[in-house]
């Protein structure tokens, strides 16, 4: 905290941080099932500013999604100003700052150990391992990019928790108001505000995500680590921080300490967000500095200033983080081992397509999909039925938290192509609605031991009436079924037309059986994988 009154640089920085966080939240809430006030590029804006995602996509998928080139601007800013992205802009960094601020108030007299620790080099080694993995085609470590991590946590954990609270509390008030007059005054307030949330904020009713607890646990653990060290994540682990640190080795914007007036009180180091200041002032590590300007604010003797100097002029007060060659080589070897580990299973080698792994429409072939997908959760956020879910092991360890359709939770809406529109790396291709309606993501099959007209000789037809294909991928055969008493009953038994079925899963979603639907979609016949196309097309289609 600054000791000075009035307008200080650090206060200005805090305002910018809050504004960036507010922008993140606004764009997050605007990413919905239909395009609102925010254009698609705006919905993925924070990913477009992330050069790590550009690098990983380039290395792993040998592709450069054009919009991601915007992230070069972040690199330019870093070369000029240092890691200001971390200190001024990154919404996850702001959340860590806020958490640290809370910790300081809850626990004011704890012993602060805010000086540089050699363990802060970890993030550079992790980054090296990650980039080596990406070079070998395994982009999986990108799930720990800070913006990806925050977006996924917000989508699959924070938002559903908030939604649950709002939905169920207002429902409780609503039900109480039916019986108690007193509750009506409360419901007169809660009902309109709930309606606002339902219609303008929430995407799908009761949106929830499989394994959201694990994602929440990771997020909470990282935020809680601020009690151990301020901005623990940013100092020790963040791979994007590591990448920007590389580019901030000699920024134009520099810290200068006037040795004549400095009494080595260490106030600057105590306030330093990145633990970039050496004890006793003077020396600093540009690669670790977030440009938070706490040091210049904290200095009681005003002996510390920010200056501008061209990169060819060396900075005598700057220190390197001194990465060890040996550790770096070990990290890169670790990256190779990591890549191997993710590929040693049959699923990792993609010898067997997973039956339950129904990828969103427009998803590229699995290998290429995994090379691009960040598991950021943007597609899951906008899915109007809430059917897109984060995979745990369904896609192998490499596919952790990547999206797949769980028809029991939500089906793929026929007229919707939002997942492809918002995907920042085009892991899901942006298809027109008409093109998307031609893509088969799976194939439905009846479980005749459960399906009512087969197993219980009654008519049902729920699946057929919901089938979105204009010509219907489900058709009926009228059959006489023998009864227990020897009589016969005529029923319509449904069948799947494998050529027409696109695997949207609405049949499974609406099936009268709730525990295990009697019609289930599996990934067979998915357009993107010729090896998984099991049913020969009929006379009309070429093989």
């Amino acid at each position: 905290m600054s000791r000075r009154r009035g307008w200080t640089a650090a206060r200005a920085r805090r305002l910018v941080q809050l504004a960036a966080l507010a922008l993140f939240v606004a764009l997050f809430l605007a990413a919905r099932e239909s395009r609102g006030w925010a254009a698609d590029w705006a919905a993925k804006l924070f990913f477009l500013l992330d050069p790590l995602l550009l690098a990983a996509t380039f290395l792993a998928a040998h592709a450069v999604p054009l919009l991601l080139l915007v992230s070069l601007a972040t690199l330019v800013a870093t070369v000029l100003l240092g890691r200001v992205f971390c200190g001024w802009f990154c919404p996850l960094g702001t959340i860590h700052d806020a958490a640290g601020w809370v910790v300081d108030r809850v626990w004011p007299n704890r012993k602060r150990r805010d000086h540089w620790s050699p363990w802060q080099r970890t993030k550079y080694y992790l980054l090296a391992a990650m980039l080596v993995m990406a070079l070998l085609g395994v982009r999986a470590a990108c799930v720990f990019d800070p913006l990806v991590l925050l977006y996924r946590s917000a989508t699959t954990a924070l938002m559903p928790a908030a939604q649950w609270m709002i939905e169920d509390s207002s429902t409780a008030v609503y039900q109480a108001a039916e019986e108690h007059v007193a509750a009506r005054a409360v419901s007169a307030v809660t009902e309109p505000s709930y309606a606002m949330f339902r219609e303008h904020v929430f995407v799908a009713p009761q949106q929830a995500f499989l394994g959201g607890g694990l994602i929440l646990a990771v997020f909470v653990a990282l935020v809680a680590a601020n009690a151990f060290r301020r901005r623990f994540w940013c100092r020790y682990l963040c791979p994007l921080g590591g990448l920007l640190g590389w580019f901030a080795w000699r920024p134009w914007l520099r810290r200068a300490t006037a040795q004549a007036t400095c009494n080595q009180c260490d106030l600057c180091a105590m306030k330093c967000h990145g633990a970039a200041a050496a004890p006793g002032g003077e020396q600093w590590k540009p690669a670790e500095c977030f440009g938070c300007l706490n040091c210049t604010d904290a200095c009681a003797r005003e002996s510390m200033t920010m200056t501008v100097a061209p990169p060819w002029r060396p900075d005598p007060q700057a220190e390197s983080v001194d990465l060890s060659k040996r550790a770096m080589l070990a990290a890169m070897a670790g990256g190779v081992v990591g890549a191997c580990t993710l590929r040693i299973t049959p699923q990792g080698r993609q010898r067997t397509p997973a039956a339950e792994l129904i990828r969103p429409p427009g998803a590229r072939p699995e290998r290429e999909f995994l090379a691009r997908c960040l598991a950021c959760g943007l597609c899951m956020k906008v899915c109007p039925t809430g059917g897109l879910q984060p995979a745990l092991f369904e896609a192998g360890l490499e596919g952790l938290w990547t999206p797949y359709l769980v028809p029991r939770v939500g089906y793929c809406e026929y007229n919707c192509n939002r997942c492809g529109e918002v995907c920042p790396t085009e892991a899901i291709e942006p298809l027109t609605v008409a093109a998307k309606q031609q893509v088969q993501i799976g194939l439905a099959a009846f479980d005749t031991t459960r399906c009512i007209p087969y197993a219980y000789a009654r008519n049902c037809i729920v699946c057929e009436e919901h089938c979105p294909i204009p010509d219907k991928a489900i058709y009926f055969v009228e059959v006489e079924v023998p009864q227990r008493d020897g009589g016969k009953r005529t029923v319509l038994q449904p069948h799947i037309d494998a050529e027409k079925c696109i695997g949207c899963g609405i049949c499974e979603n609406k099936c009268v059986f709730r525990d295990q639907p009697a019609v289930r979609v599996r990934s067979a016949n998915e357009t993107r994988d010729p090896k998984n196309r099991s049913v020969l097309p009929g006379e009309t289609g070429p093989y």
Partner: protein
Amino acid sequence: MYPCCTRRRFLAQSAAATGAVALGSRPLLAAPVPLGDKPAEMTIARWTGAKDPAPAQIKEIAVKLTEQAIAGLGGLKRFVKQQDVVWVKPNIAWDRTPELAANTNPDVVATIVRLCLEAGAKTVKVGDNPCNTAKLTYENSGIAAAARDAGAKVVFLDTTRFRKVDIKGEQVKLLPLYPEIIEADLVINVPVVKHHVLAKATLCMKNYMGVMDDRQKFHQDIAACVADLTRYMQPRLCIVDAVRALMAHGPRGGKLEDVKTLLTVAAGVDIVALDAFGAELMGKQPQEIGTIVAGEKAGLGKADYRRSALRELSVS
């Protein structure tokens, strides 16, 4: 012949009809029971103007047909009391555009909303429990925008708000119904005429399946279940939209070839009679349709709509 007919009345009517034919006044002939100025119990408004109207024209025609069909019943003042809360219940089931006739025509809905407000209703709410994502379905069906413009409150049904109600049916006892609908002073049932694989046609009675949740089980005995629900709902006014009808691949459709432009709107108080009329539009005999048979058996109305106080209107 008609049960009410005496020989004297028959002779008098015959004389009147002959006279009317001689004078070239046709409407008298069209109505089997002369209504005079009395309000009808059922009206059928048919477009007899230019054939194959352009899509923009269909909008105007839908408005005119709806206005005429309601006027023939004596106007909405007959049903709507001052300060009433009216729930207009169209079929908003599918994420399809209006031309595909999978949902009620938005202009028919908007006209009803406007007439309700003109008749003195305090609030007119429009809503249904769609099969597809509610927000997309409400928007793409065109109904949300049209109803809002006409002054209605467009209500999204909330899955957590359904209330278990004992409807005391023969097949169905406890059913989760939407409180806001069953508590409305008047529910106007506004279905679109559609093909349905199981029920053969989906009309007024089946349209009530939009006020409930957990409806998948209904199909196993659809006629009895729908009749139970209809009895509980006590229909007072139904308006059948046959501006466009979905003749095949119903109830969801999706192909223009399956849509027939019939340019007809019927309104009435007898739900079974209206369903019978709708079935005939689909080229079906009313007795083929399970829900109609079950409805008649349950005493909800008479399928032979020609015997009710019917007024047929030509609109051009």
